[in-house]
């Protein structure tokens, strides 16, 4: 190994968040020259567990894959099983699924925006955004009774209605969310702190984004207009006018702008759904329980990007095989590319930039390979290091 090079292992634990990851960085001075990810610290064997449970039990298990995009997973799951069962869900259920999906996107994107503020040492932004995010959490609770696992989707439709009496309250909340998001977008465009830490940082060129199979806002911030809602419509997306947001800065700043604009698009989608909500039942009538042998591929646009499930049934009440690929995994190769040639100080914000299912890292140990000396930094220390580094 080159004498000037150091290896820096980062991760895997973080006690506060749901996914753990580990990266081994090789650095030359302040520059990252190699990145090697190791995932799986939170691998719970859910795919195996699903083969051992019935389709109804699996619905509840799938909901718990993620505590942020739980609705995306159940939507993807229900679609898969409904296709295997040849069930068409009622139009009203499609609209309710769409509304829940977009509320979830708003809460996820705002959560992320707050974390971005935190990572770049702009904690005021973090606190304001998270305060405002409570508005959407309240709406989710109003509809589903829950803040995290809404348990709204079920095979054949939805379990909860959005009656006309709720419309005013939802619209009022959405109005507030739109106004605040527009404010934060302006702020991010004008505030020097954000520009300094985000513009030109964590670059992912369009060609690399495609080659490395990036997904979601990460891909769209590299100028590629791909969105499962538009390209492979599900729920009610085929009937709703909306824009696929792209920016071509290919950096963290563009990832911020894409998500801000997507929140505003989500507000419009929900308003449209509320105004055009079809009447009728919430769940398909007269459906049996049998799931015929077959296989399906189900996709949704989760807040973080393309979520894909593959299901294979064997005629019993349990799946033969169920496969889940979450968007974070899809973005790891692209993330490694973004980190290359970047600075140590940018590691936290670039990792946060893809909105991984972990917001930050807990333990950072730096190893001097040559002398064998090593020292450990917590995530907080790495964050402070990065803030200090930018101050000078």
């Amino acid at each position: 190994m080159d004498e000037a090079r150091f290896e820096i292992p980062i991760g895997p634990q973080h006690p506060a968040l749901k996914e753990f990851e580990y990266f081994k960085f090789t650095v030359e001075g302040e520059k990252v020259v190699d990145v090697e990810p190791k995932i799986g610290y939170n691998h719970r064997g859910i795919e195996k567990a699903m083969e051992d449970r019935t389709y109804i039990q699996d619905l509840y298990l799938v909901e718990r894959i993620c505590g942020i995009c739980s609705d995306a997973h159940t939507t993807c799951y229900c679609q898969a099983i409904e296709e295997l069962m040849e069930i068409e869900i009622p139009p009203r259920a499609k609209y309710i699924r769409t509304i829940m999906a977009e509320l979830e996107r708003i809460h996820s994107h705002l959560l992320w925006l707050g974390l971005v503020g935190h990572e770049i040492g702009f904690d005021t932004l973090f606190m304001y955004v998270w305060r405002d995010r409570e508005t959407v959490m309240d709406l989710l609770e109003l509809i589903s009774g829950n803040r995290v696992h809404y348990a709204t989707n079920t095979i054949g439709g939805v379990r909860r209605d959005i009656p006309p009496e709720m419309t005013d309250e939802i619209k009022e909340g959405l109005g507030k969310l739109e106004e605040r998001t527009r404010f934060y977008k302006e702020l991010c465009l004008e505030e020097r702190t954000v520009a300094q830490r985000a513009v030109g940082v964590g670059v992912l060129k369009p060609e690399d984004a495609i080659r490395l199979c990036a997904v979601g806002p990460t891909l769209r911030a590299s100028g590629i207009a791909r969105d499962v809602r538009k390209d492979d419509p599900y729920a009610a997306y085929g009937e709703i006018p909306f824009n696929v947001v792209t920016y071509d800065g290919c950096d963290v700043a563009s990832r911020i702008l894409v998500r801000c604009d997507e929140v505003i698009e989500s507000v419009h989608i929900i308003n449209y759904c509320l105004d055009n909500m079809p009447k009728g039942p919430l769940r398909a009538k007269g459906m049996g329980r049998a799931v015929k042998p077959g296989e399906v591929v189900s996709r949704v646009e989760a807040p973080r990007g393309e979520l894909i499930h593959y299901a294979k049934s064997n005629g019993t009440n349990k799946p033969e095989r169920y496969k889940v690929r979450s968007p974070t995994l899809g973005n790891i190769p692209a993330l490694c590319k973004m980190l290359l040639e970047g600075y140590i100080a940018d590691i936290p914000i670039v990792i946060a930039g893809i909105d991984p299912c972990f917001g930050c890292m807990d333990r950072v140990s730096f190893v001097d390979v040559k002398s064998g000396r090593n020292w450990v930094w917590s995530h907080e220390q790495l964050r402070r290091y990065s803030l200090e580094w930018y101050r000078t």
Partner: protein
Amino acid sequence: MDSEGRREEEIIKALSAHLGEGRVIEASVSRERRVFITISPEDLQGALRFLSEEQGFRHLSTITGVDAEDGIEVIYHLNDGKIALSLRVTVPKANPILPTIVDIIPGAVLYEREVHDLFGVVFEGHPNLSPLILPDGWPEGVWPLRKEWDIKRIRRKLKGGKDG
């Protein structure tokens, strides 16, 4: 097939023509934007190169492994922006070897490692097949998503029992 299925059908025809007569083992359009094609492992790289370079299927959503009794099915979920094309090959369980596709689709790098971890499929030419998902110290030869490793047997093995 109705008009909606046209592009889906064309892809099957184009791939059949490219690989030569009889090389596509099975192909179906299950619905709009969903295509399933089965080929044999020796055609894998040629098919992927053709689909990604000439048919626009540059996005690989993931790779799924499926235990099919004597063999392991490996399914490459490709996408051209609209159509989800699942390209399937089957390798024997006793000798599960496939060529890597990271030279064709670099985004496959982690998906191949995942299938290697969970099913023991070896992707020849892959730059690094070290464990990605399984923990350090996972016993060798335990491929947790293979059917012969049911949950109880895995638990026994992890507790240090003799092969469950």
